[in-house]
């Protein structure tokens, strides 16, 4: 983890009609840092993630990623990855097909290299040989791992995790949290986890940021 600031959120506001969800919210995240946003339901955690991704426009303030203002950058060009709360593995593609969607074709890699990248990441997440598996046949934990792998393959500057462990049983959850953290640390990837579970936050994050209703 370096001291270089990768994400800078300054005084952002977001409201839906009369409901102020984010009110002058500020946050700075260093490169390689893993933080957890902890707070009760409705405090704006998920809204903050959606603003970071570009799915929601902010009313005022700014979000800078690697020093660049994100205001007019569409989600697909922001270099942000996200693991959603719900399963977002595309059901019309198998595990390999899902992973290949995460690999950019702009990096001059040929088809064989892309397949190799997909296989390697599966080995890294402990799902070696799962390439041809139908995504519907994966267990909850396996599906989460594949989603994380797909996100990692897209080489984002920051990964956002929107309560991805909430539907898992405790033993599986703790193992997956540790494995995910280890992987992120090895690759020195910045991450923000949204959760309302203190134990999960402590296990996963370098720093916990408490959010409350504005």
């Amino acid at each position, binding site marked *: 983890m370096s001291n270089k600031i990768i994400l800078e959120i300054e005084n952002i506001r977001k409201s*839906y009609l009369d409901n102020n969800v984010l009110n002058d919210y500020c946050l700075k995240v260093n490169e390689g840092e893993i933080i957890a946003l902890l707070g009760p339901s409705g405090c704006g955690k998920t809204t903050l993630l959606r603003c970071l*991704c570009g799915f929601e426009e902010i009313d005022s303030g700014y979000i800078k990623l690697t020093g660049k203002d994100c205001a007019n950058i569409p989600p697909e060009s922001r270099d942000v990855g996200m693991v959603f709360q*719900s399963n977002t593995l*595309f*059901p019309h593609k198998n595990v390999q097909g899902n992973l290949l969607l995460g690999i*950019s074709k702009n990096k001059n890699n040929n088809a064989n290299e892309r397949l190799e990248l997909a296989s390697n990441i599966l080995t890294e997440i402990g799902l070696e040989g799962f390439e041809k598996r139908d995504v519907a046949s994966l267990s909850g934990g396996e599906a989460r791992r594949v989603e994380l792998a797909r996100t990692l393959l897209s080489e984002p500057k920051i990964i956002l995790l929107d309560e991805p462990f909430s539907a898992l049983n405790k033993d599986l959850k703790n193992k997956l949290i540790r494995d995910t953290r280890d992987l992120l640390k090895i690759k020195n990837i910045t991450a923000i986890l949204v959760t309302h579970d203190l134990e999960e936050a402590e296990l996963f994050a370098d720093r916990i940021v408490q959010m409350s209703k504005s």
Partner: protein
Amino acid sequence: MRKGALLLHVAPTLLFSVLVFFPLYLGFTRLITVAELSPFAAIWQIDSRPSGTGAIAFTFIEASISTIITILLGIPIAWTLARDNWPGRIYLRAIFTMPFVMPSIIAAVGFLALIGTDGPLYPLGIDLRQQNGIIGEISDATGWENPGHFIALIAAHIWFNLALTIRFLEPPLSNLNPNIEESIKLLPGGNNIFSRMKNLWLPLLSPNIAAASVMTFIFSFTSFALVRWLTPSSYTLERLMAEHGGAAGIPDYGMGDAQIVLGSATIQLITIMISLILLNWLQKRNSTAVPFALSKGQNRQKPFREMSFTSILKTFYFISILIFVMAPLIAVFRSSFRIRVRTGDVGFTQQWTLEGWNSLSTLSWNQTTITEALFNSLGYAALTLLIAVPLGIIFAHNIHLSDELATNARTRGKRFFWKYWARGNDLLVMFPLAISAVLIGLGVSLGLLNTWPSLSQKWWFPAIGHILIATPFVVRSILPAIRSLNPDYSKAAALLGLGPIERMFKITLPLLSGPIVVASSLALAISLGEFGATWVVLRNGASSTLPVHIDALFSKPGFDPLVTPTAMAGASVLMAITLILYVMVEKYRPDGAGGEF
């Protein structure tokens, strides 16, 4: 919103509005000029023509009676399909709902074959066509003219629209959480069947019943082929418009025709507008039924008990409806092998033959054979598929996106705009389905052809009506599927770096492949079977479609015995193609789809 996205949002709406409203506007302007009357003054002229006398009352009466009986017969079928685990339940439902996709000309000639002298009813003394036997006695006793024709028309409308009741009612009945029914049984307000009906089933189902009723009423009100062939001496407003439409655009000569068409079109538009507003309101109320949905894995159907009294009653009812649904289709196929043969000086008998099938590519009418008409139909259907399906997908996507934009809008103004943009687009796209095929045909022939006569030389011209009529079916097939897609799929794809076009082709469209097959099959079936608009635009000729050609063959003087078996063979081919398309629709229809097409 980016410029490209904005263009994709506005362009289909503008294009469709122009295609729907511009011909109608031109047509109405032409009619008002030729009729020299205002639309409302023209209403009073309908009764002044012999064919128009009693047409308004007849239209409302036949549509109302058709609706009431269809709903009454349909409710028990929907209930039993939803509640009992019949052997082959899925196939039974597919058969019961099949008539809705059948071309109206097939229903017309099927019922003609059933009620003709070679049909199964004649030997039983039921002669609905010539009205001898029991029907003649009813007519003599009551003074009711042509009761047989009216009965045949109502039966055909029921046959056609039974599917609507089943499609609207079966899903809420099968998805109703059993715990809700169990809990009401334990309360004073639900301890007998009548109180449960009053306090649970009727409040829950009445919006669906009403929506099915409105749709059945509209389709019966605007039916043309069935009225033309089954009640030859009675006119509905739709038939008046179609049969007087040819001369209605000619100044001076066509003044009377223009008045009758203008008056009929005015009543029809007002009635349909009221029905559509009612339907929209009912469907909004309908959405409150969703919380009753079953949770995943729960099963609503009870095992079918073969020996109970109610099971025997239900079996008898199902078999009766099964025979009713299949009979006209079997009659069409059977009639293609039957030919009239003279016996002695005055008599005729029917014999088995293959000549009808052998004459498919040789027997011509207006220089067109059935085979040529079939290829014309396939050409129009292909064009309809190519335009209506992408257009419908874009419309469905836009409606869904507008709903989402309304939900996430930051200001009340934006929320209001997107909400009504979505609703307006939804109504716009349903409009051609509601205003009737004949009215679309009149818009095209009186509006576009009178203004630009050279358009009639363009081979693609008749397909305009087909595209307009097929697009609502595409939207209604795709929209529920788009709404049920996990919205996070698209977001996840965006974060993987896929742009909007790439997302559309790599994620959204593959996920919608099933509903797209359904929509494409429906679009093909609708185009192949389209009758009213094509009949008005083309009448008959070298570019005639198969349904219009079959109609023309039946209109031919009956001296040539080959005409009927050949027309029936052509109808059998059309029926077979429609059946294949229907199988595709049923195979790829999403589980639990209902309330839509």
